[in-house]
């Protein structure tokens, strides 16, 4: 199945503006992130922390919902889903 990726800020520089990723049916957000991380070590470092968990300062939105309000990395994906990646922005 095809998943659409929209990357912003530092993720755009690493992933390009918009792209599609082919995943096997039944894949999860974790599969998508792992697939993206294989593209470069820099990208892996921007997605996962040293222990292999998704970094706390990355926002992953699946069709407008933060993945942590779904099932986190175990969120199932479906054909045509749109996943947005952007860094947490905290300051004021």
């Amino acid at each position: 199945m095809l998943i659409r990726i929209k990357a912003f800020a530092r993720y755009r520089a690493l992933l390009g503006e918009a792209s599609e990723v082919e995943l096997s049916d039944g894949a999860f957000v974790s599969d998508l992130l792992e697939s993206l991380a294989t593209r470069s070590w820099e990208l892996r470092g921007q997605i996962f922390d040293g222990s292999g968990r998704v970094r706390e300062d990355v926002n992953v939105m699946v069709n407008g919902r933060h993945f942590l309000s779904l099932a986190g990395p175990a969120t199932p994906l479906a054909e045509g889903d749109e996943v947005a990646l952007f860094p947490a922005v905290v300051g004021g």
Partner: protein
Amino acid sequence: MEDGTRYDRQIPLFGEEGQRRLARSTALVVGAGGLGSAVSVYLATAGVGRIVVVDGDVVEVSNLNRQILHWQEDLGRPKAASAADTLRGLNPEVEVEAVPLFADEDNLEELVAGSDAVVDALDNFDTRHLLNGSALAAGVPLFHGAISGLDGQATTIVPGMTPCLRCIFPRPPPKEQVPALGATCGVIGSIQATEVVKHLTGLGASLAGRLLLWDGYRGRCDEIPLERNPGCPDCGRGREL
């Protein structure tokens, strides 16, 4: 209004009635840092009748690259008092209340309840989530903004209609001292002020349900459509659990 000339250039946008609506309104600005500076300056000059500025911090020299409410002579003063002086100087028609406290669960409920618009100009998500809960409870729109370096984001939260801040960002990101450029605070704070003025005057279409992302490194603006979380602990079913 003491004269008809101060607002002559903006009344064509929303009419005399729009200007009167601004004058009758109270905006709560939580945080008098970089974002709070830009937002409150533009709300004051636009003629929002009452502005309440909440900040428990004091002015430090490292604030002055971006926090345009505070000047060299304000070093060591409470930010709320410094902010109030600047805003009164910009527009003496506006009533400004300085609240020299850090926003917390003890004071937010009362502060939010008397407001027509709540501006999130905070620097951490723990307090933002408290503010989100208070704004939802009072049914007052919340105008979110945040910055880091040349990046920024903004959205408008309308209780009962749009995703709340907890829907959008369920977990506070790690606390860190982020790089901050005054101009980025100006971009995002000005967007927040625009949203507040639009809301108070009934102008245009708001950022409700959309997260605006500003990428200053590339000079780009994007948006992400947002959906509510039905199980949200702040605004959804999770609240009753």
